[in-house]
């Protein structure tokens, strides 16, 4: 083999592939909750709609209407499969919107629900989704008060798509927004991360991890109410759905212009999530959650809030994972188990399984 080489290759000319930036067409990454999603909002939607309230880009909009403070949010659901361990598209449609509302401290009250059905889907399946949605609404203590149905031709949908919108009342004295994070705030997560994303992947991709992983999909209104009893002075709440904890922390850091530092060993990651992620080359910090929240709490209230969270079933696994710092504004930095550091950046598009 050595004899066949005529000359050493010129390694100085070495260049490698780079992802394309200016996509003329929408790709899956635009829905990934990362940089590409944010660009779509910033460059297309925000300029088209304008508006001061939209520009805050919170999980829900905080409105004042007739002297009453309302939270208002909407979310669409295109999950496949429709039913998965621990929940269904119906559960997600309720809890997704409810959780967006409660992340502003609101008590969620009313939902709308739109069904986009694909021609040919069995009515039995639609009924099953509707039943799940109704049950989830009752469990979350919200009422579905208006709705809509559309049917698209076979091949133009994926069985059932849902959209929900919701409103809720923001209590007096509560002001929870990403912009309120300040250095010194303690960062708390309500429990184990990465569970929903791995549960979906395990059924969608037919991957078996030895144990069934059940989605954490749940409404968080009760947990937030318990936290507000400990103190009304919560600075930020966020449910780390698409893009995972990493995206949520980056959005907060950017919105408030603060740095966030987390201790990787303090982040609760269940062994089965860790194992699945190791196998697929994914990072649990970027995997979606549907029944967890991350809170930025003033240091003096942190112990009380943590204790309150742990007293609630959905916060039993709550843990302090880090703090808000003055250094490296708009950046999230993790201290690794070995004592090194790494920058936890906003994901670009969708997290992709690695080949090596």
């Amino acid at each position, binding site marked *: 083999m050595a004899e066949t080489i005529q000359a050493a290759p010129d390694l100085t000319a070495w260049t490698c592939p780079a992802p394309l930036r200016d996509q003329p067409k929408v790709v899956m990454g635009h829905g990934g909750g990362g940089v590409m999603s944010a660009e779509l909002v910033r460059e297309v939607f925000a300029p088209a709609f304008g508006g001061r309230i939209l520009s805050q880009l919170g999980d829900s909009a905080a409105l004042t209407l007739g002297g009453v403070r309302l939270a208002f949010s909407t979310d669409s659901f295109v999950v496949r499969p429709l039913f998965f361990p621990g929940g269904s598209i119906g559960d997600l449609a309720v809890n997704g919107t409810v959780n967006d509302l409660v992340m502003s401290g609101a008590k969620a009250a009313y939902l709308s629900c739109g069904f986009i059905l694909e021609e040919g889907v069995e009515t039995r399946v639609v009924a099953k989704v509707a039943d799940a949605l109704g049950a989830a609404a009752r469990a979350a203590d919200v009422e579905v008060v208006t709705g809509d149905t559309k049917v698209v031709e076979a091949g133009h949908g994926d069985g059932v798509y849902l959209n929900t919108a919701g409103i809720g009342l923001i209590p007096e004295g509560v002001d929870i927004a990403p912009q309120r994070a300040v250095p010194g705030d303690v960062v708390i997560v309500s429990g184990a991360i990465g569970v929903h994303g791995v549960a979906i992947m395990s059924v969608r991709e037919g991957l078996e991890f030895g144990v069934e992983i059940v989605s954490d999909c749940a409404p968080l209104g009760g947990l937030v109410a318990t936290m507000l009893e400990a103190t009304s002075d919560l600075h930020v709440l966020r449910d780390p759905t698409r893009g995972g904890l990493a995206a949520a922390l980056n959005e907060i850091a950017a919105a408030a212009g603060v740095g966030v530092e987390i201790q990787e060993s303090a982040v609760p990651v269940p062994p089965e999530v860790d194992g699945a992620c190791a196998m697929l080359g994914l990072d649990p910090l970027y995997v979606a959650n549907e029944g967890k929240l991350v809170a930025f709490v003033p240091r003096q209230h942190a112990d009380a809030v943590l204790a309150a969270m742990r007293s609630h079933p959905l916060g039993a696994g709550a843990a302090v994972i880090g703090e808000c710092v003055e250094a490296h504004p708009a*950046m999230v930095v993790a201290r690794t188990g070995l004592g090194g550091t790494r920058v936890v950046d906003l994901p670009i598009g969708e997290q992709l399984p690695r080949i090596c």
Partner: protein
Amino acid sequence: MKYIEEFQDPRLAQRLLDEIHATVTRPWAMMEVCGGQTHSIIRHGIDQLLPDQVELIHGPGCPVCVTPLEVIDKALEIASRPDVVFCSFGDMLRVPGTGRDLFQVKGEGGDVRVVYSPLDALRIAQQNPDKQVVFFGIGFETTAPPNAMTVYQARKLGIRNFSLLVSHVRVPPAIEAIMRSPSCRVQAFLAAGHVCSVMGTAEYPELAERFKVPIVVTGFEPLDILEGVRRTVGQLERGEHTVDNAYPRAVRPEGNPAAKAMLQDVFEVTDRAWRGIGTIPDSGWRLSERYREYDAEHRFAVGSITTEEPAACRSGEVLQGLIKPHECEAFGTVCTPRNPLGATMVSNEGACAAYYLYRRLGGPTAHKETSPVG
């Protein structure tokens, strides 16, 4: 999961670090060959914990990065065909060919699917007899055996609507090419553990001897990497250059005979173009004559397309440790993680992207920490 935490133990890591710190007396530059090792180094911040004298040069072992442009373009052309289901590992979807990537082909209606095993693609072929199912077979000696197995199975089961787009590469010719480069700074290699678990270690003593470099077979977890570095530093300080296996729980000297036999049967060694480098003789595999009908390039008669690489990118020099990323004129200006010119800026473990992030964190000095916390 078992066998992950055990190899990330902070106290054992500190012990290895202490020993490396105590052993090193002068600067050494070593290259970790595999992209998986680079990922682990950045993911755990290992480079910041090593002594300043130990420089890790991130090598060419990322299959995504080295797959040549014309192969990507062939993939895009095949995937665009209405009768084709194109299956690939996930991270290939974002790699651009000329003007677009597989994500965009998917967005334009192409049937592009992410699979986790080439055998999944074969199953898709069985389930869709009226479609042509193509698997994108890229990677080093690690991914080659399962791809070979899939073609073998396709032939055995008489599944004729399956084919493989092959761009496999081999590590030893790449090591040789790096060492033959006149500007080479690499003084030792952490060889890719999983490649050696397939191929064994027999290909390396000749290279170690000819180029007078230690080659230490190294795993992927933090303790594996630190042990590889410890043994490499030991050899360098003693002036030795032997092949050492620091990953014996996965690597036997003879490798995996069954996998090697499968490779022998299905593939044959060929010259292979590496993206941005050009052709390295004998550095790849293609399907052997008896499996040629399963070669997607033959089946779809895709023509070759010329490569246009961005001229401003100096990642070749970065990859050899000849310049630091910020010494490149494009760094941080026209080249950023969101809009990268080269692979070293693409993923977080790329040398340029890592440098970019840590610069934002507080300048180049923040890249190293003087007092690691155990």
